[in-house]
Each structure stands twice: as structure tokens, then as C-alpha cells.
């Protein structure tokens, strides 16, 4: 069966790392790698890998509307606001890795199937991909959850200029996702940057305030969730198992990246890319099913 054709819009770190992941996928094929500057690092990598490239931005897709079924948008929220209606008009599905928040929030381990009916899917934030699944399990298994807090610490080197300038948006988007998926009305997100060398792996801790806990249900739910996430993020690892102390639950995960284009300490960037690939592959698999049924 033919692979599903995808285009990558944005040739920065995220886009280039995604390219490696697409090339490894048995369901996806990169038909276009699009940036703005042919001499950029990402572009020259793509050329070396024998991928068709363009420096024309979204125009390139408008000129060749049949070139792809899905676009990964790795540009910026501002650019995605322009790209989204164009892609919708062309009937191309957008998987949005910017914080534009136009489409529904997607965490593959939670709501992958529900997202397949949409044409624009938002991948929330890197910290959100790590923490929200755990917050979701808390919401599903516990009663009277008063408050949930998610704290991520990432290596300074894995936070580029855009991340740094957009810390507030990161926090607010992650908080929104935590509330939405956990059903808990009060949530807080915190982000720390740690400059230690060698670089630390991404670590995310989830706390929840509640008067009592159903620990067996929580432990079982978390174990199942971690397994589900490991299917698309192999190194997602529970380092502090769910523990109840002083009227709060605490648990912690560590995420090491696969180390495709980005170094392996950048688990924060890897996890959002892995999640985006999982969404695209699901579209590819479903298209296959549809054809078999005909």
C-alpha cells in the first residue's frame, strides 16, 4: 500500500527532527520539506537525505495542492493562523505543533480517535504531552481532586529563543490542557530551565491535592497509561511512582529523546514530535482501513 504523503512546514529543529521520524515510519512519506532559506541547516540535511525541498513557504503547497494529504506545521502561532484556512480550503489536514490553539487539543494516548474527524489538530505543548496523560488518569480514577499542578524541568540547551520568549503562552496553554483533560477546575503549570552540563533529561512532576486517595486505582491507571505512551515515546519512564503524602499525590516521569536530529536530552521536543507522528500514522492506518472496506 502507498504511504500517506506528508509535508513538513518549517525547517527549524522541530521540523528537521520530524523529517527523520517520517523517514523511519512505515506509514508516512515526506513529499515536501518546506522552509524559507535553502542554505539553512535543516534544508541541507533534507537535501542530503534526498527529500524534495522548497523555500517558498505555504505558497509551495498552494502551487502543488496534490503534493500531500497532511501538513505538519512547525512554524509559529502567528504563521499558523495564516496557514490554517489555506490548508482547510485545499482539504489538507493540519497537525499543528505551534501554540496557535485553533484545532482541538490532542494527546494520542487519550483522544487519538476523536481527533481523526478534524482537519486541524493541535499538539498543545511539550510539557503538556508529558504531564496531561497523568493528570487525565488522576481525573478518571480519583474523587474530589481540588487542584493539579504540573512542573517540568528541561535542559537550557533544549529551549530555543522562541520557547524562551513564549514561556507565558507555554504555561497558559499547558494549564488549559490539564484542566480540560483532568476535569479539575484549578491547575497550575511551572517550567524550570536547568543549564547543567552534561544536559539533564526532561523531567515532569505531577501533583494533585485531594483529601483521600484510591491508590490501587491510580497505580493501575498510571501503569496502563505509561505503557500506552511508550508505544509512541519509547523512553517515557516513571521515576517517582504515584505516592500519597500530606494530602497530595506526587509522581514523576523522565523523557529521553530518540536522538534523531535533536540530541537525546531534548526529550521535551522529542515527545511532541513523537505525538504528532502518532496522529499522522493513525490517519494513514484509517485511510487503509477505509480502502479495504470498499
Amino acid at each position, binding site marked *: 500500500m502507498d504511504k500517506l504523503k506528508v509535508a513538513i512546514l518549517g525547517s527549524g529543529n522541530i521540523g528537521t527532527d520530524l523529517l527523520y521520524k517520517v523517514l523511519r515510519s512505515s506509514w508516512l512519506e515526506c513529499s515536501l520539506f518546506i522552509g524559507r532559506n535553502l542554505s539553512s541547516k535543516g534544508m541541507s540535511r533534507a537535501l542530503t537525505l534526498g527529500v524534495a525541498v522548497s523555500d517558498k513557504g505555504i505558497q509551495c503547497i498552494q502551487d502543488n495542492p496534490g503534493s500531500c494529504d497532511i501538513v505538519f506545521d512547525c512554524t509559529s502561532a502567528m504563521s499558523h493562523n495564516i496557514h490554517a484556512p489555506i490548508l482547510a480550503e485545499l482539504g489538507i489536514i493540519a497537525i499543528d505543533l505551534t501554540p496557535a490553539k485553533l484545532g482541538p487539543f490532542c494527546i494520542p494516548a487519550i483522544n487519538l480517535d476523536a481527533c481523526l474527524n478534524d482537519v486541524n489538530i493541535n499538539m498543545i505543548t511539550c510539557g503538556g504531552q508529558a504531564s496531561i496523560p497523568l493528570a487525565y488518569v488522576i481525573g478518571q480514577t480519583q474523587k474530589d481532586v481540588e487542584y493539579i*499542578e504540573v*512542573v517540568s524541568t528541561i535542559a537550557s540547551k533544549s529551549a530555543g529563543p522562541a520557547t524562551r520568549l513564549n*514561556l507565558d503562552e507555554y504555561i*497558559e496553554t499547558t494549564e488549559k490542557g490539564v484542566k480540560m483533560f483532568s476535569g479539575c477546575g484549578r491547575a497550575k503549570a*511551572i517550567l524550570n*530551565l536547568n*543549564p547543567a552540563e552534561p544536559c539533564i533529561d526532561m523531567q515532569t512532576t505531577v501533583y494533585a491535592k485531594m483529601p483521600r486517595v484510591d491508590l490501587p486505582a491510580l497505580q493501575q491507571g498510571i501503569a496502563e497509561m505509561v505503557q500506552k505512551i511508550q508505544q509512541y515515546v519509547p523512553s517515557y519512564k516513571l521515576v*517517582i511512582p504515584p505516592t500519597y503524602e500530606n494530602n497530595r499525590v506526587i509522581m*514523576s516521569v523522565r523523557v529521553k529523546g530518540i536522538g534523531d536530529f535533536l540530541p537525546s536530552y531534548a526529550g521535551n521536543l522529542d515527545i511532541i514530535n513523537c505525538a504528532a507522528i502518532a496522529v499522522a500514522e493513525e490517519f494513514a492506518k484509517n485511510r487503509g482501513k477505509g480502502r479495504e472496506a470498499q
Partner: protein
Amino acid sequence: MKNVIISDATLRDGSHALSHQLTREHIAQYCRAADAAGISIVEVGHGNGLGASSLQVGLSLLDDREMLQTARENLSRSRLGIHVIPGFATINNDLRYAFDYGVDVVRVASHCTEADITERHISYTREQGKEAYGVLMMSHMAPKEVLLDEALKMQSYGAEAVILMDSAGAYLPVDVLDRVGHLAASLKVPVGFHAHNNLGMGVANSVAAVEAGARIIDGASRGFGAGAGNAQLEVIVAVFERLQIKTGIDLYKALDAADIVEKTIMAAIPYISSVSLVSGLSGVFSGFAKHVGLAAREYGVDPRDIFFELGIRKVVGGQEDKIVEVAMELQDRKRRG
């Protein structure tokens, strides 16, 4: 005669020592005393500043608004200051309303190598017509050349002063001379210094900072602050008088303010306990002291081992979750023998 601005961290850094349980009465009483003494800037808030009340660091008894409102009502001469760490506090969630409560000085802080995350909060403060300082925390962890680069970034964002914090109490006077001197020689804006007392150097380091060109010095009455406490504010005032450094503070009234803190606010006078000494030696954030004590008891391990292990891992402020993880690992190691 040199002029130095004293910025009072009592009601902010002291929050760490009280596990962030300051009451309205504490704030009102101390603010009146500090105001009467003529202290230039009085900070108030959670130990990690605005928007930092959290399970990670500790929940505040009062919310930020109540703290700011109470302080504002009781300050007339002194300016009201806040500590703000991007990553904890956002402009929309937190900073926006702080100005409605009459905040005058916003001290925007980051770990000492991460100044670029302070850009938006500093600019926003300046756009509101308020004073913005940049604060480099845990400044013992980076060489002076890096500190200068980061301080220059803050200056370019509009910071009207840059404060070096010795958040771990790890500096000796010679380090202060070297680092503060390097910044003071190259920045257009004034340099400040914030000392902790883990190695018994709080006041000596504050004197060294002024010698090296600092024009803003942070202190806390009776040393009320995280871990071994801060440079003791009333001692700084007295020593500076002796050195003919002008602070504009009335010594007797500063002593009265310190007595109020001792008698009515603090649970215990800060001192250099064996554990805070180790905390300073290992270069770990002073604000971790209470958490390390709790985790050591919970998991039956030596708090000194926790501090040294955190130091080896180069943990920064805000990483309180690491304390639990390290305590669990030490317990596991102990069980296996």
C-alpha cells in the same frame, strides 16, 4: 560618602522560613515598622515570588493579592517590591493585577544563565511606568563573564538595576569582589547584591559588594530568610554607618523592626545549623532547607547526604521535586547496603 539603597527581603525571603504562612497581621505590623525606619524598598510575597504558591514549593496561607493589599495599606514612604520568576508567574495570570495593588518595584528573576526569559516581564513592567530590576539567582553557579553577558541582556530589556543573588550562601568576600566588581565596571545601571548566611558571610559579603561598586543591598531583619537566613538588615545598617555608607535608615527604628520580626513573626531565629552549613558548601538553593528536612524524615535518610547529592546534580531553584527523588534513591541505596 556613598549612598546605598537597602531592599528589604524580610517579608519575601522570610516566607521560606515560615513555609509561606505569613499572616495579614505579620505583614501589616512589619510594613509599618519598616516604613517608619525609612527602608527604601519592602518586598512582600511567597518565597519564590508572585504566582509561586504551589505544591512544588509550598502553598501560601494568603493569596498574592491579600499580601500586596495589606502591605500597600501599611507603607507610605517605602516602595512596595515584588519578586517575579518567569516560569512561575505569567503576565496575564499574575503580573497584570500586581500593578492594580500598587506595586512600585518589580524584581524579575531567573537562574543566573537564563536572563532571556525575563525580557517580557521586564518590558511589561517598564511599559506600566514602574521600576524593573533584573535578578540573577544562584549566581555562584556561573563564571563572572557569563554573569556579565546575562546582566547586559537584562539591561537591554530595560532593567534599571541588576541584582546578583547568592541564593545558596556559597560566596566568600573574595568572590563578591570579583563578580560584583566585574559587573559594576561594565554595566550602565546599578548593581545589587543579595547575601545568604550559610557560611557566616552575609554581612561581610554585603560590605565587600559595596566596596566593589554595588549600590543596592538586600537584607532581612534579624536575618529572616531561607535556610541559614539572609544578611541581617539591621546589622548592615549599623556597619554601613560605621563605614560612612549612607542608607537613609534610622538605626533605632530598624532595630525596632527587627525586634518585631523576632517576637511576633519568626518561629525560630535563623542560625547556621549543621544542615544549612552543608547546604552552603554544596551550593544548593537555601529555600530547599525545609523540604530537605521533611524528605529526610519521611525517607529516613541524612539531610546532609541529600544536599550534597543535589549539589552534584546541579539542581536549580524551582526543582523541589528533585529532593523527593534524591531522598527515595538514598533510601533505596541504604536498604541495599
